[in-house]
């Protein structure tokens, strides 16, 4: 292996070095500083005689005398089932004081695209125990469903609740452990405090045993954040598609990941895209998010729950925007609901699960699920609209019909969405609460629900009761 002392330029996270032998694109590089520190990096561009290298740990301490070694291979993740229960840093090195990792295989972290022909369409209902998700935005095995949040909102509580409660109901009595998820947790630039929150919960519930944790914290190098999720997803794919696990991958915070991309782009003096983020950010994010799914003929699955904090709570910001264009829906956390004390403060209106339709219904969840969800959406949206009007004209100026929709919207938030982080509701519970609320509305208003289903589930007395109290 050839060693060079030919660094010509150091700029932000980038180092340029002259070479006299060809170096492969994306290859791994080791740089040794004069103080004897070894830093790792990756080839970003390779031309005859010159390579540019992106250094993961930051370029502090590198000077012209640093030596550069090209390892002749692209970055690999050593994988084994024994990774379960381990805590690693953002570059994949153990930091839990445990034994060295003896890998079964070393897998390229870039990951090859799953052949669309080889995929199996995800349609197994995951019960998260959270009504706003299960009832209205159902998650299925193999889906990528991000949480769109804002700074200071309880997205971590929700992610942990999902990780704790997620099961696939029919398998519950079946083969032991079959419905339990292995959890891969990939942290990018989160605070020590947040990291503790996750670790303590994993330890408290015993989830750590079936988890692999990758930690890149706020004070860890930013460029390392671009490899952390790839290490996490490579591990996830191995456990899912080689070892048959159903894997739940939680990645947080994608916003920090994108900031790192922007930093590298700026250092390379690339033409920036929207708001300074690289023009290829869509492709880059897709290469993470598309590593979720099911594969025909393989046992396991990779389900992704990436978390991102929307700068300025703005979902048209490039990070949530590009994410939404790639993922199969989104769960949106709402600041107003949070200040109202709704736990979890999920706003169902902008939320969506695109894989819901095939994962629910007769034989999967319940025959009325789709219709109930549609109707609740329509009714809640109508109630929400009316709230603006009430502020202007007052409740008395509204018709009886309108007042019912207003009440519906209130109860929807306070009884359906509100449940706390420790309550685990079955899908039956969720749908029954749904019918409690829908029965406040006159039957004829339920135009999204099949007549036979109304017959079966509508509570005749409910409407009258509410009417009586409203008078």
């Amino acid at each position, binding site marked *: 292996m050839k060693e060079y002392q030919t660094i010509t330029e150091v700029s932000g996270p980038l180092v340029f070095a002259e070479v006299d032998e*060809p*170096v492969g*694109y*994306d*290859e791994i590089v080791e740089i040794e500083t004069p103080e004897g520190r070894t830093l790792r990096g990756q080839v970003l561009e*390779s*031309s*005859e005689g010159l390579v540019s290298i992106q250094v993961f740990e930051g370029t502090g301490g590198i000077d012209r005398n640093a030596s550069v070694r090209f390892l002749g*291979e*692209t970055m690999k993740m050593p994988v084994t089932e024994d990774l379960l229960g381990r805590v690693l840093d953002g570059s994949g090195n153990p930091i839990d004081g445990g034994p060295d990792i003896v890998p079964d295989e070393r897998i*390229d972290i*870039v*990951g*090859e*695209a*799953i*052949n*669309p*022909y*080889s*995929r199996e*369409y995800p349609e197994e209902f995951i019960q998260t125990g959270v009504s706003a998700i299960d009832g209205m935005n159902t998650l299925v095995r193999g889906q990528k469903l991000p949480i769109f949040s804002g700074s200071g909102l309880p997205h971590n509580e929700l992610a942990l609740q999902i990780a704790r409660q997620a099961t696939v109901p029919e398998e519950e009595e079946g083969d032991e452990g079959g419905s339990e998820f292995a959890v891969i947790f990939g942290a990018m630039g989160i605070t020590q405090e947040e990291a503790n929150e996750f670790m303590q919960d994993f330890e408290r519930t015993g989830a750590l045993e079936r988890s692999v944790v990758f930690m890149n914290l706020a004070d860890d190098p930013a460029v390392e954040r671009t490899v952390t999720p790839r290490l996490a997803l490579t591990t996830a794919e191995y456990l899912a598609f080689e070892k048959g696990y159903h894997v739940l991958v939680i990645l947080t915070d994608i916003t920090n990941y994108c900031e790192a991309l922007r930093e590298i782009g700026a250092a390379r003096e*690339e*033409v920036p*895209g*929207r708001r300074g983020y690289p*023009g*290829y950010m*869509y*492709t880059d994010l*897709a290469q993470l998010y*598309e590593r979720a*799914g099911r594969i025909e003929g393989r046992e396991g699955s990779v389900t992704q729950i990436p978390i991102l904090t929307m700068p300025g709570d703005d979902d*048209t910001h*490039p990070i949530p*925007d*590009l994410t*939404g*264009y*790639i993922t199969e829906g*989104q769960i949106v956390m709402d600041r107003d609901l949070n200040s109202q004390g709704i736990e979890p403060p999920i706003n169902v*209106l*902008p939320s969506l699960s*695109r*894989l819901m*339709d*095939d994962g629910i219904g007769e034989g999967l969840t319940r025959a009325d699920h*789709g219709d109930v969800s549609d109707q609740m*959406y*329509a009714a809640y*949206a*109508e109630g929400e609209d009316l709230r603006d*009007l009430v502020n*202007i*004209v007052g409740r008395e*100026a*509204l018709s009886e019909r*309108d007042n019912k929709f207003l009440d519906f919207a209130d109860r929807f938030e306070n009884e359906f969405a509100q449940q706390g982080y420790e309550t685990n509701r079955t899908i039956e519970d969720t749908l029954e609460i749904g019918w409690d609320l829908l029965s406040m509305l006159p039957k004829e208003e339920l*135009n999204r629900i*099949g007549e036979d289903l109304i017959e079966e589930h509508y509570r005749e007395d409910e409407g009258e009761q509410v009417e009586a109290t409203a008078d």
Partner: protein
Amino acid sequence: MSQAIETVDEDGVIERVSGPVVTATDLDARMNDVVYVGNEGLMGEVIEIEGNLTTIQVYEETSGVGPGEPVENTGEPLSVDLGPGMLNAIYDGVQRPLDVLEEKMGTAFLDRGVDAPGIDFEKVWEFEPTVDEGDSVGPGDVIGEVPETASITHKVMVPPNYEGGEVTSIEAGEFTVDEPVAELDSGEEVTMHQEWPVREARPANEKETPTIPLVSGQRILDGLFPIAKGGTAAIPGPFGSGKTVTQHQLAKWADADIVVYVGCGERGNEMTEVIEDFPELEDPKTGKPLMSRTCLIANTSNMPVAARESCIYTGITIAEYFRDMGYDVALMADSTSRWAEAMREISSRLEEMPGEEGYPAYLAASLSEFYERAGLFQNINGTQGSVSVIGAVSPPGGDFSEPVTQNTLRIVKTFWALDADLAERRHFPSINWTESYSLYRQQLDPWFRENVEEDWPEVRQWAVDVLDEEGELQEIVQLVGKDALPEDQQLTLEVARYLREAWLQQNAFHDVDTYCDPKKTYRMLRAIKTFNDEAFEALEAGVPVEEIADVDAVPRLNRMGTAEEWNEFIDELESDLEEQIRSLY
């Protein structure tokens, strides 16, 4: 992708690798030649030549590839294989069949350096001549037929770049695609296989004004914003607003002969859904499985970006080939924005001068070249065929003022504007009825008059007027509440609500509602108009609005869409409406 003939020219050497863009020296190549890059022979295409430097976009991942590795030129432009076997197939962006790749690579993941022809060269097809020996045939002429799938007969044509002549031998029988099925006195041999460079439109005679709608079975499209067979349409909308579902609905139910569905830079699972669903769905026209008229091209968001750039061309070339046979072809491209972004990405790696928002200056030209390949054509063999193009557009932040949406709107004649607000309240399809338009309306009206109902345009205009009026009234309602409006306006709001909820809304996932025959579309509208007319008469006779709205039969308007025996259902509903409303006065 077409199996390039191995006439290897002078090899070049890689000088620089930057993601999907590779620069080579000493390569003897023309623009758009297909080359094999590096020791693994990754497929690429020449996109720039400058002195001794040749720039190549590579259709596969380039990690590990380095300077010094060889580049080999095939001397052929990027082409597709055309012939029987393209229907019921699923390709990547350079026409490699994904099922063949799975088999060859032996894994569910896309490996590198594996090539595969676009059609099966071993498979034997049943050829039946339609011309006789001694007949004279020219370029494009049909000389025989192959039953390709349950619903489609493949026409075997003299390639457009042939000279043509007298048929000296032709015979029915079983042939593979590269065995000659006919010989001409010009010395030319005709096989069932043609190759065509994707960036070049296949020749046709004249473009004509289309007068027949591409019936979609979607009420808001057929009813308000129809597209013509041979027309162009754009569906822009923010994420989650319904672009893909609308495209899938068109791919399922549009009355085209052939559907080419291009998944350009979108989700893997959406393609899987098509592969799993379509074989089980029936074409409402032929009763045959939908897949047998469908060709899929899937270059998902995580597949190489250069192949995303080319997949649009691969798709449109295949569409043109079926057009040449005299078929009506519909091409859906989901999403043209990803295609534009792929151009931008490549262009920025070439360090070209960026235009608006970093897109290359030739963005507008590329978009219009693509949409220009749509149309109703007089083919060179005298048949008439059409290519309709429906492109999804994914504007950043849902803002339609961005370059891809704007440049597209300058070209296409149908605009289906998706609306995040409607999508949030689950009003689907969430096509905004005030912003959308179709410039084909007038030229299609005669067809609707003749084939659906004489007063189709008038009834449609009535609906448009009511919806417009509702829009204006809603602004007042926002300020003072509904009850402050005069009774007739309250009634208009009630009628408009049924137009929106019972007619414009259509559930793509409901077995019955998913497809709506234009006759049903008309009758549903007519039923709401019956309610309107009866109600206004009652109002005039002094019946209060509330009483009218409370009539038992009225909410049944909402059940029309899901009614299977819709003729009977609507007959009964209309007579109940009349009777019950009239009984109020």
